[in-house]
């Protein structure tokens, strides 16, 4: 029930965009974007502010529907899915939102455990997992704080922890290091690389070229750049 058409075609792409276009009602923001993210690949997404990085990521996790073209997630076309399918799909995709949002009435630990709660899993069984994760992102001492009491960087780390608690097949992170110092971003990067080595597909939107350079030293990452409404593979200059 939870595996929405999960990787039937082992060799196929996890996320596949075919001739996708998108606009928010005004001028075209993205047009004829075709992409194939293979399982286990590591991608960076860059481009100037307002180019459409967040938009493209939202298309990739089914939060927006393309105005033209087709998107296939785990081999299944988004156009064929209903809301329920998308909800189930989300359980296989960990998402770090750019303005990481939380439930402000639940504490950090509960927020991180939220994907377990809404998918009806027994949170108790994941307790150790949760503790380790919180420790990893350095939030153990803040685990009973409410989200509005977190610092900017703490929020981003909590959002990352929440995104990966279900051990999803795909991790999509939008500017995960915008508010984090260099040292902490190195740790997050290491975590993402580790996940990637476990076979997860990783997509990270960032404007932090330093992060990309650092990643390239650790993993075979492709860099996609949005410019002029197209997505291009960035050259070796990065």
């Amino acid at each position, binding site marked *: 029930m939870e595996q929405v058409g999960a990787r039937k075609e082992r060799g196929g792409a996890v996320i596949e965009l075919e001739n996708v276009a998108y606009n928010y009602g005004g001028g075209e923001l993205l047009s004829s974007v075709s992409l194939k993210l293979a399982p286990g690949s590591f991608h960076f997404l860059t481009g100037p502010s307002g180019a459409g990085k967040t938009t493209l990521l939202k298309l990739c996790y089914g*939060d*927006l529907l393309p105005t033209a073209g087709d998107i296939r997630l785990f081999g299944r076309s988004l156009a064929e899915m209903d*809301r*329920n399918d998308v*909800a*189930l*799909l*989300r*359980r296989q995709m960990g*998402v770090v*939102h750019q303005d990481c*949002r*939380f*439930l*402000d*009435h*639940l504490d950090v630990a*509960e927020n991180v455990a*939220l*994907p377990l*709660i*809404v*998918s*009806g899993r027994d*949170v108790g069984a994941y307790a150790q997992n949760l503790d380790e994760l919180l420790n990893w992102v350095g939030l153990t001492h803040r685990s009973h704080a409410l989200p509005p009491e977190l610092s900017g960087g703490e929020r981003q780390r909590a959002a990352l922890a*929440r995104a990966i608690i*279900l051990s999803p097949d795909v991790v999509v992170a939008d500017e995960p290091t915008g508010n984090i110092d260099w040292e902490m971003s190195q740790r997050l990067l290491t975590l993402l690389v580790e996940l990637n080595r476990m076979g997860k597909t990783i997509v990270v939107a960032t404007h932090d070229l330093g992060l990309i350079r650092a990643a390239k030293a650790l993993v075979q990452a492709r860099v996609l750049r949005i410019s002029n409404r197209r997505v291009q593979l960035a050259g070796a200059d990065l």
Partner: protein
Amino acid sequence: MRALLSLPKSIWRRVTGAEAQSDRVVPPSGFTAQLTLFASAAMAFLAVFALALSLASGRLADRWEADLAAGATIRVVTPAGQQDAQVAAALRVLDTTAGVASARALTAEEHEALLAPWLGEGLDLSTLPAPRLIEIEETADGSFDPAGLRLRLAAEAPGAVLDDHRRWREPLTRAAGRLRSLGWIAMVLILATTGAMITLAANVALAANAQVISVLRLVGATDAYIARAFVRRFTLRAGLGALIGTLFGVAAILFLPSAGSSAGILTGLGFAGWHWFLPWLVPVLAAFVAFIATRASARRTLGGLT
């Protein structure tokens, strides 16, 4: 108000098991909760009164109806010696009149009771050459013809005068009927208002929680899961509020000082027999209205948010 609101809150926590994991994902939304509780309590309180009013005027109408069910009366005014003969003659005429179900001469006691308010009690009618009265009960279709009956009486019992009560009964029963329908209309209005109020409160809550909904969606909650949390909460709140309001309403009616028997409508403002069962439908109805209203509003909101 504090006290009123803190009690339901603690009951509320138990009733809903607010600590249950799946319910915690929707924030407690303090003021909206209080608003819903308060609004449905106030409305239930009013509904109980409207219900009591309807039932009481129903009873009043029935009583007036029964009191005047005789439909018509015949007064037999003659010299004392002839009264019995003319009463008998009039009764014979009535026996063969279409539309008359039964006819009966009032006994002396009944007659006395009727006149007591005006002539004083302990009056001995036999000392007064007062008229004798015959009560006529019409058939259900109420189709007897007063003019024809008058003519026949003139011939057979000249001292008998037909007095048609319908001119008394109709406006009275009409008035009671109107009071009753006023009560029902008030009930319907109150329920509709409650429904509208709860729908609005649910909408306020849903609108205020747009961000909560988007977070829940982000982490893979289905719409059914999200809607359920809101609907359950509002249904229980509305039901609980209405229950409190009903309790207060019933208590108020119970402890309403009762007037003397002469104060018709007011003394009657209570429940009788199985009618005591009816006010308890108010919270059930309120919960049901809240359920429908919140579900519709949750579906609309969830459908509207991308």
